[in-house]
């Protein structure tokens, strides 16, 4: 059975297992942040400014005496939330446009693909910076902007997959039976392109997390005092010569999370690949 084969393959795939473990760990941290954090991440205490890691403050404290450990823990929420929502938006847009473009072909396809080409012409981070500067920074805007500027890859991928299945006999049969186009698209074609979308989305989350961190680092992302890995790093930059913990821990958190999603994506590709 296909399912059994997939599970067996998954069990033997180190990449997949490592990625899944890392992602699961961070999801766990995000969900149970209030239980894991040892301090209020926004609580300012001028009596404990810039303390190195200790048994009280596992990751040390920042310039306002806030506990870095708790901030990194809560920052997990922001990172994952932004990652999921931004990718959700881009996958939705990308899938719908890809299905339409691939299924209808011809003029529709030309219009959609040229639009994709135009969007791809913009250097994406610069575009995001410009839009955020215009809209003003907030978590919502960051998610929306990342989502709205990163769907093109998904569109191309979905379009290619759709084009390869739309001429199959069962689609023709469905069409002859008079089944509506929307139903054909979502019920008969979509399941065929789901796997590649799922893999792309996993990899996309890693990219979105990195982009959010970069934006917050530049002060254009999540606004203070909400902790995000990027804005903890910003404080780290100002004190890097003598307070390494400010940069080290959020940096490591970003590194491991992004690694986790990349491993998971790669692993999924291997596991879900019907060939072999």
């Amino acid at each position, binding site marked *: 059975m296909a399912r059994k084969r997939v599970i067996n393959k998954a069990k033997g795939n180190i990449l997949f297992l490592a990625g899944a473990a890392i992602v699961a760990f961070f999801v766990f941290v995000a969900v149970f942040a209030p239980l894991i954090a040892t301090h209020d991440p926004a609580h300012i205490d*001028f009596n404990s400014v*810039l303390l190195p890691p200790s048994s009280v403050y596992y990751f040390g404290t920042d*310039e306002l005496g806030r506990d870095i450990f708790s901030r990194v823990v809560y920052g997990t929420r922001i990172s994952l939330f932004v990652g999921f929502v931004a990718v959700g938006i881009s996958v939705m847009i990308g899938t719908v446009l890809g299905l339409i473009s691939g299924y209808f072909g011809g003029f529709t396809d030309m219009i959609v693909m040229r639009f994709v080409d135009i969007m791809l012409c913009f250097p994406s981070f610069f575009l995001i910076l410009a839009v955020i*500067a215009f809209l*003003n920074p907030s978590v919502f805007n960051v998610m929306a902007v990342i989502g709205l500027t990163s769907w093109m890859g998904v569109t191309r991928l979905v379009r290619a997959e759709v084009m390869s299945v739309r001429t199959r006999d069962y689609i023709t049969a469905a069409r002859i039976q008079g089944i509506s186009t929307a139903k054909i698209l979502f019920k008969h074609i979509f399941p065929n392109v789901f796997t590649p979308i799922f893999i792309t989305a996993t990899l996309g989350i890693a990219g979105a997390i990195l982009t959010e961190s970069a934006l917050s680092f530049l002060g254009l992302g999540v606004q*203070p*005092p909400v902790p995000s890995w990027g804005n903890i790093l910003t404080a780290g930059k*100002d*004190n890097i010569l003598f*307070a390494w913990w400010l940069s080290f821990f959020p940096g490591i958190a970003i590194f491991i999370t992004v690694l986790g999603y990349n491993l998971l994506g790669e692993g999924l590709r291997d596991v879900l690949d019907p060939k072999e």
Partner: protein
Amino acid sequence: MKKIVFLLLAVLCVSFLSGCEDKNKEGGKTAEKRKAEGVTGDALVISTLGDASGLIYNITSDSASHEVSQYIYNGLVKFDKNLNIIGDLAESWEISDDSKTITFKLKKNVKWHDGEPFTADDVEFTYKFMIDNSTPTSYDADFRLVTGFQVIDPYTVRISYAEPFAPALLSWSMAVIPKHLLEGKEAAKSSLMRSPVGTGMYRFKEWKSGESITLEANEDYFDGRPNLDRLIFRIIPDLNTTFMELLNGSVDIMGLTPTQWVKQTDTALFTNSYDKYTYLAPSYAYIGYNMKNPLFEDKRIRQALTYATPKQEIIDGILFGEGVPAHGPYKPGTLWYNDNVKKYEYSPEKAKQLLAEAGWADSDGDGILDKDGKQFSFTLMTNQGNSVRTKIAETVQQNWSKIGIKVEIRVLEWASFINEYIDKGKFDAVVMGWNIVQDPDPYDVWHSSKCGPKMLNFICYSNPEVDQLIDDGRHTMNPQERKKYYDRFQEILAEDQPYTFLYVPNALVALSKRFREVDPAPAGITYNLEEWYVPAGEQKYRFEK
């Protein structure tokens, strides 16, 4: 020269090199002696955060431009080390008995950098330039009050006003610009913006855009050649990088951040090569409330917010103690500062009480005050690139939440912060700073007529009594009498709390030990720059003559 409050300098906040125009005369003899001993030479490498926008002093207003061009030009008058007004291009001056006319006698041995002689025509040209509507300057207001300008002979000018105008004399510290090079030309597009010609102690040498600006000593300076051969302004947009450059020896002077000052200067690398200088900076930080927002209409609300702001904790925690609490717009320890105003010690209880009197109560038990069904919540804005301000915002957010006020913080890019929010009045409250200028006239920032786009009373504070006091203060020449108006002005401000005045920071300057004759005074640290020298054996840079 620095008459107007510079918005930009306020951004940079680390205001070092403060009293900009003071080239003291008293030390002239010792400087000459040193010249005879052969200790001229070497260069001072100064870091600036931004590139200059242009080098004609009168039509630029960013601190980077002024930091450079102050050494290229002279005004008619300037400050000495103790902030007394003394002659610069003017040999002497006389003020008429009715205080409406000033007659300046100009120095006769002054030459422009291109060798042309400086005369009264240049002063007249500068005056006409300043009031010309096509001149893009922010410093025209004082000159528009001039009612008569007379060139009596090549070295005498007489200037009259319709009524006594207290800042008049100081307004002539404005840079005098060369008539023979600028007459009939559009200054902003003139080549002098990039290669200026002045009368100052340093002349322009080279400008590498975004990298550095170099000035060299004016051998023919009327007050004697400065000892240091060159001033090199290096543009380094980040203070951490600047500090590394300092440790590396490629920068000689910089304003440190409080964190750098406290945490990073006790290494041998630093103490072997640098001295630290600290003095009260001529600037203050504040939280300003939009007076057009009904939320802040009631002065009890603003008083409550001040009561709930822990000024001392902010100074100790964020500035590491390098500052003093501010209670008004003047610098403590100066003539104009009034210490007998209402002060707001940190007291959340008093704040709560005032808010209750004003009708705010937490009727739905959600921890946030409400009144007529509306929550007490607003947005506190500040600009990016100044982590101290962001930290202040986060600190007051926490403190105000304790008295039931919900604050959202927004940190915005400077240009959009000023153009889209401040100028358009689209803000609730802001964390910002002002430079404290030498003349006490608060007209631009506090007079109700200065509320409008691109004007400095952007919170739109309006109090008829304050307006009257400001007007009276402007038209009184006697400092003691003037002080009475400003004392009362400060009392009213303290009562009204249109700003929560936070603190006056210390300037924290690191300067290479090889420079001698450094003597910080009320006018700042660089006021006697022409006397600084480096002993022959310690000189670092050599230049071909």
